[in-house]
């Protein structure tokens, strides 16, 4: 049950230009609701990552981003990232740093008033490593991990900051199938338990159909459609946006999947 005052995230009038090229044109996205997972969908170059960076305040752009009554766009970066955290697509670099310390560093970084003790830091790091069941990696250097393991550490870093809103840019890209499902399940649990606003960029439409509550489809820098996944992902939209002939079907277990017949 959500608290009545749980804030939602809303980005309005987002316009981003790189030189003369307009990537996003007066986009309004949201409100993204607490306790829900929303997928940002769209083909390559449609502006998904750019929208996320703009919402997180990591790009110079004109936009009004609010979390409940609070105008995030008016906050300094350090305060803003404490409320609304963006996890980039690039994996954490393979540095000579134990995983435990990578999490402790993430907890300290950009903090305005770091008041916790080292014992608190270790406790928190172990808690999140445990949640991702990568506690056994705690003492390994980041440089010794696989890409997928580094992605899990990156996710643990992000969740350990306990923001109100999480913007995850392709958080499953380096993970095998099993880990993709497991991470989505963990995100679902955390989102519900802590009334998180979770927005993620996905390329896997089946994951979007079955594991998210809401989808926003971007195409050529504008929001093409928004709503419940099964309502939004229609053959007409898939043809127009992804340029494929495809159908959304339902399996015997009630799960939906996209069946692609060919390119349009």
């Amino acid at each position: 049950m959500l608290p009545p005052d749980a804030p939602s995230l809303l980005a309005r009038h987002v316009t981003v230009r790189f030189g003369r090229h307009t990537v996003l044109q007066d986009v309004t996205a949201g409100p993204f609701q607490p306790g829900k997972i929303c997928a940002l969908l769209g083909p390559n170059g449609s502006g998904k990552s750019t929208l996320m960076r703009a919402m997180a305040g990591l790009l110079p752009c004109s936009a009004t981003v609010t979390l409940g009554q609070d105008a995030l766009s008016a906050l300094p970066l350090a305060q803003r990232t404490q409320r609304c955290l963006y996890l980039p697509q690039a994996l954490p670099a393979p540095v000579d740093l134990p995983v435990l310390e990578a999490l402790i560093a993430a907890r300290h970084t950009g903090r305005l008033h770091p008041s916790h003790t080292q014992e608190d830091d270790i406790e928190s790091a172990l808690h999140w490593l445990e949640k991702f069941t990568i506690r056994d990696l705690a003492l390994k250097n980041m440089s010794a991990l696989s890409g997928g393991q580094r992605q899990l550490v990156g996710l643990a870093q992000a969740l350990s900051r306990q923001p109100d809103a999480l913007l995850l840019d392709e958080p499953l890209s380096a993970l095998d199938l099993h880990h993709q499902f497991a991470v989505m399940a963990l995100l679902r649990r955390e989102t519900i338990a802590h009334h998180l606003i979770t927005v993620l960029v996905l390329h896997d439409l089946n994951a979007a159909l079955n594991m998210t509550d809401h989808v926003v489809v971007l195409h050529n820098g504008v929001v093409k459609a928004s709503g419940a996944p099964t309502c939004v992902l229609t053959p007409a939209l898939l043809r127009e946006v992804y340029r494929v002939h495809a159908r959304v079907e339902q399996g015997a277990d009630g799960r939906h999947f996209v069946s692609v017949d060919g390119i349009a």
Partner: protein
Amino acid sequence: MPHLPASGPASDTPLTSNVIRAAYSATVRKRVQRLSLLVCAIALSCLADFAIGPAGLSPATLFHILLHPDTAPVTQRIIVWDIRLPYSLMAVCVGAALGLAGAEMQTILANPLASPFTLGISAASAFGASLVLVLGLSVSGIPESGMVALCAFTFALASVLLLDGVSRRRQATTGTVVLFGIALVFSFQALVSLMQFMATEDALQQLVFWTLGSLVRASWPKVALLAGVGCVVSVFSLRAAWNLTTLRMGEERAASLGVDVQRVRRAALLRISLLSALAVAFVGVIGFVGLVAPHIARRLLGEDHRFYLPGSMAAGALILSLSAVAARILVPGVVVPTGIVTSLVGIPFFLAIVLRREGEA
């Protein structure tokens, strides 16, 4: 609902939280021990540097003069207090400054080949100094030595800003930055050569001192200034340690965690310029210390910048202090310019890093 399976290789003894806590505490203790060992090694090297020299004074005599300067003849007192001691301490201060500058450069440029020497900052500083020495640039109220430091700093800062600009270009790779740095080295070396060509005999002698890099002109005021600036700068560096550690994991990741990357970089560039310029203004171009020291620190202490930064300072101090000892004993009776020794040691190390990176690629 699926759960994440354990990752990584299977282990006979599962890592409980307590085991991890104990192991991490042991890691931190080991780092402190290694850092302490480095400091002890610096003290020993400094003593050796102090005790060895062409004056023919025994170590016992030297230490007697050090402890009881009033009882010693004037010449011996001068040798101990005004030559040997500042020389030894200058090696430590310059080494620490270059080590710290190199460590911060490698972090903010995300480039293991970055150092004030390899990327042209030292050469730029030397050119700045040469402008004062040869062309006699002056500002009323600032003594010549101050002008040398100021000009060296200005050119160091300019070259660092150029490098930063190149490293932030979208298509810039590690190789691009290194090549640009090499271009800076050659450009400023050519300009220094031009200054040498135009210089009077006196100025030429001073310029040669700069290009070779030597500790022989160490003096107490210089040691005090460099130590003071080094202490202040290192406090600011350590305050930025967490942000720098996160920056090592990727610029975008650091920004997403709330690091004002541009601000952190600019502050680091200012510190690097200050340290490099003062080191060059006082002892000339000392090569490779700023490159090698961070690699040693990384190997010994990892990349948690709370340890890595002081470790780079300590490693730099030790390398230069040992080089100063070698400079005295390489050719009997002659003190070889220390910059020559560090280059002789540094070039193979530089090649090793390059080849290792090629292997990794």
